[in-house]
């Protein structure tokens, strides 16, 4: 009897790994997007870095690939003290799609205003799109991969 109970418990534990996403998961992922926006607008690289996995892959709008949280935070520090120091991030749309209970793909549209170009001149506000791969690690949803692309106005591509 005790053996059966123990095995049942173990089976339930294993099954939990393979179950569907919990109702709170989508809310937690949307919260992650809200935290990203807030951390960006505080120009806080450490807070941004807390939202990503230790081995996160980040590809920015210029096609540059940062590998791992440390590199990501280093790049963010340079950006947030540089061209992004007065920029404002606004997330305009978040779409969440689960691939399995612990991995989801998130599409986000954002606008960025107050950004400086590499020459130091003001860039007009612009729209972009991001694909995030988010992962649930120890109960917490984090960004595991990200790629961003500027949305080009229709007549010019």
């Amino acid at each position, binding site marked *: 009897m*005790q*053996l059966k109970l*123990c095995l049942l*418990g*173990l089976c339930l*534990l294993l099954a939990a*790994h393979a179950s569907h996403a919990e109702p709170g998961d989508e809310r937690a992922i949307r919260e992650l997007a809200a935290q990203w926006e807030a951390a960006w607008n505080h120009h806080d690289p450490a807070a941004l870095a807390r939202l990503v996995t230790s*081995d996160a*892959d980040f*590809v*920015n*709008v*210029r*096609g*540059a*690939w940062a590998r791992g949280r440390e590199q990501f935070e280093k790049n963010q520090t340079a950006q947030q003290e540089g061209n992004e120091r007065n920029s404002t991030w606004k997330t305009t749309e978040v779409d969440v*799609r689960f*691939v*399995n209970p*612990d*991995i989801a*793909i998130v*599409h986000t549209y954002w606008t960025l205003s107050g950004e400086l170009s*590499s*020459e130091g001149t003001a860039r007009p506000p612009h*729209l*972009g*799109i*991001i*694909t995030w*791969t988010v*992962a649930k*690690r*120890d109960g917490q949803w984090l960004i*595991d*991969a*990200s*790629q*961003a*692309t*500027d*949305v*080009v106005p229709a*007549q*010019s*591509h």
Partner: protein
Amino acid sequence: MRSKLSLITFALIVLLPAPWVLAQKGNSADEKAIREIEMRWEAAWNRHDVAAMADVYAPNSDAINLAGEWFQGRDAFRKSLEELHSGKTQTSVWQTERTEIKFLSPEIALVHVYANSHGDRNPDGSPMAPRRVILSRVEVKHGGKWLIVSSQATNIVPRASAWAHRASQIAGE
């Protein structure tokens, strides 16, 4: 007896690695199948075979192109490829430079691809300079077959500072 069983259960729970640790390695057949997706994409692009290009995508996939356009579903992406390959990319040549694979589970992989293309045209019909791109893809094994479920492409912008640095070096030479 009871404590021994509890101990075994406890040990199993503690020793059981987290799923993402357990699942880091795909096997070599999976890796080969994922690399083949890029080979098939390249070959299909270069013979402008839109059906074969779309074939590496899952029916409910998401694709975001270099212009930031988001196509929801394979059919929508296929339609855009048909337009491209009867216009701006009808003489385009795609070359995959590098494919890097990270398994998120035995059936889910994150794939980064560096590629370049030449022979493309601008919207006004003038020849476009060769360009390099990077793609992030999520691929899923379903029914024994790997397919792209999400893909985003971004142009690689040469670093202005790197060029300026090189220019100043040349000027100083």
